[in-house]
C-alpha cells in the first residue's frame, strides 16, 4: 500500500446522516469519504458541516500562529513560537487541521453536482450555495497556510480512495494566492452566496457573501493588490442590504461582539453552542484570570493602561474590562497592574464577572466590520498618494476610535509620510483586534510589502519592543531572514511525503 499521508488517515465507515438542526454538532466518523457515499443532499450537508467542525479543531493553532510571534500576547508556559525557535519536530508546525478542512471542502466541490443529479430534492440553488461555502472554507484554509508556511502543497481533489497518490510537492505562494482568489471569485460569480441564513448563528457561523468579500480583501492586502482590497471592503462597507453586517457604533454594545457573540458587526466566526448543543471550548480558561495559558505581554498591558488613562475607567470600552483585566485588587488601581488578563473570551460584559459554567463556548471571530474598515484604511494609504484617500483612511480609523470613546487623531496630512500613516493603522489594529489571532499576520504583512521596505519599522522594532521572552538580538537576527518568517514543515510530514522540500531556513537545525 502506498504511504498514507499524515493528514488523511484511512478509516473505513461513512458519515451519519444529519439533519439541518444538527449542523455543526456531529463530528464526522472519518476523514475519507468513499464514492458510494454520495447519494443525498443531507450527505453533502454533513460533509460541508464537517469542514466547519474541523475549523474548530484548528482554533488554538490559529491563536498560536497568529499571536505568539506578534508578541502582544504570550504563552506563560513557554512556546517555541514566541522565542522564534520552532524546529521541524514541533507539533505546532503540523498543518493537518487545515488540510482536514480542505479535504472536506474538496469533497463537497467534487461531488455536490453528482448528488444534485441523483437527489431531486437537492435543488440547484441550494447546491450552488453549498459550493460557495466550500470555496470559502478552502480559500480561508489556504490563506492560513500561505501566511504561515508561504509554500504548501496545493490539493484540490478529495482523498476518497487509496488509488490517489498521496505525495505532492509544494506550490509557491503566488500559486496558492491565485488559487485562493480564483476560489473566491468563482464563489461570488455564481451569485449563490447567501447574505444570511435562517438561523442567526448560521449567518455568522457559515460563509456568507460578506465573509467571501472580507476574505478577498484580506488576501488582496496580503498580495499587495490595494485596489482589489478597497473594492472588496466597499462591497461590505457600502452595502445597502438589510442583512449586511454593520459597524456597531454604540460603545456600550462593544462587548456584545464577544458575549453573547454573533453581533451585527460580525462577518464570520467559528461557532460553539454549549446550551443547545453541548459544544464547549477551552478559550475561557486558556485566557481569563484564573490560571491562563495566554497573557498580554507587559508592553501590551502598558498600551491598555495608557489607553485607559485617556478615557478613564468609566468610559473605557476596549481596554479595562473590555480587552483586558488588570491583576490589581481594585480597578481604580489599574495603573499598578503587573499582569493583563485577556478578557474577550472569559467575561460577560464590562465587568469582572466571568461566563457561567454552562456558557464555556465563546466563538472565535475571523472577520468583523472594524477589521474590514481598517483593511480599507491600510489599502487607501498604500494605493493613494493623495490627501483625499489618506483623509478617508484617517476617518475610518477615527470611527473605530470614537466607538471606544477615544479622541480622534488629526494628523496634518501634508506633513506626514506613508510610514506614519501606516503606523496609525497598525496601532489601531493592535488595540482593536487584540488577541483575535491577527497580530503576527499584520506585522508580517506591514513588514514584507514592497520588498520588505518596512521590515525594520513594522516587523523587527514592533516584535522586539513587545516580546518579553526572547533575546532582542536573536529576534532581530531571525526576522532579517526571509525564510525564518515562515514555519518549517513538520518532520513527520516530510517523512510521509517525499516530494516536500523543507523551508531552507530549517535545514541546518539538527
Amino acid at each position, binding site marked *: 500500500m502506498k504511504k498514507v499521508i499524515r493528514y488523511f488517515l484511512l478509516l473505513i465507515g461513512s458519515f451519519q446522516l444529519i439533519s439541518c438542526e444538527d449542523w455543526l454538532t456531529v463530528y464526522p466518523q472519518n476523514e475519507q469519504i468513499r464514492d458510494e457515499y454520495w447519494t443525498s443532499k443531507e450527505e453533502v450537508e454533513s460533509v460541508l458541516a464537517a469542514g466547519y467542525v474541523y475549523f474548530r479543531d484548528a482554533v488554538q493553532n490559529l491563536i498560536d500562529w497568529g499571536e505568539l510571534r506578534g508578541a502582544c500576547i*504570550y*504563552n*506563560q*508556559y*513557554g512556546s517555541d513560537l514566541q*522565542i*522564534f*525557535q520552532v524546529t521541524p519536530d514541533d507539533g505546532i508546525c503540523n498543518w493537518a487541521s487545515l488540510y482536514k478542512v480542505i479535504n472536506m471542502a474538496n469533497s463537497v466541490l467534487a461531488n455536490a453536482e453528482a448528488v444534485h443529479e441523483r437527489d431531486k430534492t437537492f435543488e440547484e440553488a441550494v447546491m450552488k450555495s453549498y459550493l460557495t461555502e466550500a470555496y470559502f472554507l478552502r480559500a480561508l484554509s489556504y490563506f492560513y497556510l500561505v501566511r504561515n508556511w508561504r509554500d504548501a502543497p496545493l490539493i484540490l481533489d478529495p482523498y476518497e480512495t487509496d488509488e490517489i497518490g498521496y505525495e505532492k510537492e509544494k506550490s509557491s505562494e503566488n500559486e496558492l494566492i491565485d488559487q485562493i482568489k480564483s476560489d473566491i471569485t468563482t464563489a461570488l460569480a455564481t451569485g449563490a452566496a447567501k447574505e444570511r441564513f435562517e438561523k442567526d448563528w448560521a449567518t455568522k457561523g457559515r460563509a456568507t457573501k460578506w465573509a467571501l468579500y472580507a476574505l478577498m480583501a484580506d488576501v488582496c492586502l496580503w498580495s499587495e493588490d490595494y485596489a482589489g482590497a478597497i473594492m472588496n471592503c466597499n462591497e461590505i462597507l457600502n452595502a445597502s442590504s438589510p442583512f449586511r453586517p454593520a459597524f456597531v457604533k454604540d460603545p456600550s454594545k462593544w462587548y456584545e461582539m464577544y458575549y453573547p457573540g454573533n453581533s451585527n458587526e460580525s462577518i464570520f466566526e467559528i461557532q460553539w453552542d454549549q446550551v443547545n448543543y453541548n459544544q464547549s471550548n477551552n478559550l475561557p480558561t486558556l485566557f481569563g484570570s484564573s490560571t491562563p495559558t495566554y*497573557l498580554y505581554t*507587559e508592553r501590551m498591558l502598558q498600551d491598555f493602561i495608557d489607553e485607559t488613562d485617556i478615557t478613564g475607567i468609566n468610559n473605557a470600552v476596549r481596554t479595562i474590562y473590555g480587552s483586558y483585566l488588570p491583576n490589581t485588587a481594585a480597578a481604580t488601581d489599574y495603573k499598578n497592574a503587573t499582569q493583563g488578563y485577556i478578557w474577550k473570551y472569559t467575561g460577560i460584559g464590562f465587568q469582572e464577572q466571568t461566563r457561567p459554567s454552562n456558557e464555556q463556548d465563546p466563538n472565535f471571530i475571523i472577520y468583523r466590520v472594524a477589521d474590514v474598515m481598517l483593511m480599507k484604511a491600510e489599502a487607501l494609504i498604500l494605493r493613494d498618494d493623495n490627501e483625499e484617500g489618506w483623509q478617508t483612511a484617517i476617518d475610518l480609523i477615527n470611527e473605530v476610535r470614537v466607538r471606544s470613546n477615544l479622541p480622534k487623531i488629526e494628523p496634518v496630512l501634508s506633513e506626514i509620510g506613508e510610514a506614519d500613516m501606516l503606523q496609525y493603522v497598525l496601532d489601531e489594529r493592535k488595540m482593536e483586534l487584540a488577541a483575535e489571532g491577527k497580530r503576527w499576520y499584520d506585522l508580517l504583512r506591514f513588514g514584507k510589502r514592497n520588498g520588505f521596505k518596512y521590515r525594520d519599522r513594522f516587523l523587527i522594532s514592533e516584535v522586539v519592543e513587545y516580546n*518579553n*521572552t526572547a*533575546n532582542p*538580538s*536573536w529576534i*532581530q*537576527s*531571525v*526576522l*532579517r*531572514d*526571509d*525564510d*525564518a518568517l515562515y514555519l518549517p514543515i513538520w518532520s513527520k510530514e516530510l517523512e510521509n511525503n517525499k516530494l516536500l522540500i523543507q523551508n531552507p*531556513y*530549517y535545514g*541546518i*537545525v*539538527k
Partner: protein
Amino acid sequence: MKSINKVIGSALLVLLLFACDDPYEGKTFRIYEELPSATYLESRPEDFSMWIEILRYADMYNAVNQSSQTFTLFVPDNEAVENFYKKMGVSSIEELDKTYVQELVKYHTINVEISQKIFLIGGKLTSPTVSGDYLTVSFGENESGGGLNAIYVNDEARVKELAIETINGVIYVLDSVLTPLVETLYDRLEENENYSIFKEAVDLSGWKKRLSTPYDTVYSQLGKVSYLKKNYTLFVVADDIFAQEGIQSVNELIEKLGALPDYTDSNNALHKYIGYHMLSQTQYVEDLFPFDGQNDSTIIWSTLAENEVLSTNSVDGICYINYKKSTGEGIRLIEGKTDILAKNGIIHELDGYMPIITPDPVIVIWDVCEYDDVAAVVNAYGAENGLGDCYQQYQTSEHKISLMGDEITSYQWKAYSSKSTGGWPQLGYLLTKANTGATVNTYGAYKNDMLIVNLGYMGWVSMTSPVVLKGKYKIDLYYACAGSLSDFVSGGSKCQVSIDNTSTEVYIYDGAQASVGIYSLTLFDEIYFDNNAQRTMKIVLMDPRASTHKDYRLQLDYVKFTPVID
C-alpha cells in the same frame, strides 16, 4: 553531599583533561545507537578529520568520548582548521606546542551539555569552558540570512550546525577556530604600543600584579583552597590622548598629577589615578550605560581608588563618563575601541585623560550584596551546582547561600543563637527565582538578590556602602517581606541602624504586608556627610524573637541615598 560529588567529579575531569597522556587510551566504551562525541566526529571525516587529529595530539580524544560525562564541543570543521594552520604558519598540528594545543581544545570544550534552547538565549554562556573562560553567543545577519544562519561564538566563528546530539553531549560546528583568551589585561596593555604611558604608570604604581592575575588563591581556615576569578574593567588612556593634554611620557603624567615618589602608596596621586581607571568586575559598554528609555540617567561607580567614584551618564542618548551639567561636557569612549576582552576583564579606551573628579551628587542605590567577595562565593556556588555565574541572576528556584567568615571580608558580623528553620543561614545570600515566563524575580528585588540576616538577638552586621558624595541625604532601607513573616508585620521588629556614627531605632516590617514583595522604611529623613566617602552601616537585631522565632530573618535588598536639595 551531592554538590561535593559534583565538585570532585569536575575536579577529576579537569585533571584528566590536563593530563599529558590520554588516560582513557585503549578503554572501550558502551555502544549506543547514537555515537559518543569523538566517535561521531570520526564518522564524518570529510568535515572533522583535522579536529580529530587535534584532539588526539592534545590527548583529549578519549576524554571527550567518555560516556560518564557530558560535554558541549565546539568543533571547527576541516576548512576552519586549514585556515587556522595558515594563520599560524604551520602545516600540521604537531608543529604547534602541545600545551598550547591542549589549551586550545579546552577553550573549545564545556563539560556540561548546553542545549540549543539555552544556547540561543545568547550572550555569555552560563557555564565556563574547561579552560575557565566564558564564550559568548551573538546573532547577526550575513549573506545566508539571519537567525539560525547567523549565530556567532565570540563574534569570531559562525555556527554551521547546531546542537548535534551525541550520547554524551552536543556538538556545535564552527566555521573558524576560536582564539583562546590567554592575554590578561596587563598583556593587553603591553601588546599595544599606544598604551605605553598608561602601562608604565601601571608598573610604577603597583597595579601590575592585579592586572596580570586572573585568579586569586584563597586559603580558608579549614584548609580549603579555592581559586576565585577576579575581573576588572579598565579605562585606558592611549598615548595620543595624553598628548592632547601635553603629556608625552609617564614623567609628565606624574608631574601633571603632582604625584610624590611613593607611587605604590594608596594615597599617592599616581596610584589613585590608575585605580580611578579601574572598576571591579567586567562591565561591557551595555552594562556601563543606563538606558532608561528616553530619560537621561546616571550611575555612580566605585573605582579602585579609595573613596573615589566616577559616573556614567546617558544624556540625550549620548554616553559619557563624568558628565558635568555645568559645562555640558564629559569623557566619551572611543568607538571601536571598547569591549576589548582579556582573560581577567575588559578594556575601554577613553577620549580624555580622566583625572579624578567629584561627580554631581545623585541618588545612590546601594545593593547590600554588591561586593566582589560575595560575587566570587556565589559564582563558585553556581559552578558547583551547575548554575554558572549565577550572581545577581534569578533562577528557576530560590537559593540560600551561606556566607562564611573565612571567605567574606565585606561584612563584619556577630552571630548569636537563632531558632529560625527553613534553611535560612545566619548570614547569607538569597538568590531569587522568577516564575516561568516571568522576566522579574518573584520579590521584585533589585539585582535579583538580597542579604539574609539571621544573627540572633543582639546579633549585628556591618558593611560599607559605595562612595556617597558630600551633601545632605534622605536614607531609605528596602527589604523583603513574605507570608511567613506575618508575626512581625504588626508592630515590626526592632533594629538599631547606624550610618557612620549616627544611630536610629527602626521597626522593620512595620507597615509591610505579609506577602512576598519589597517594602521600604526611612532610616533618616536628613543626614549630612561632609566628605566623599564610603559609609558604614551597622544593623543590630534588637528583637528577642530573633533568637526564638522559627521564621525570623531580615532580607535586605538595598539602601537608597537621595540628595536633599535645600
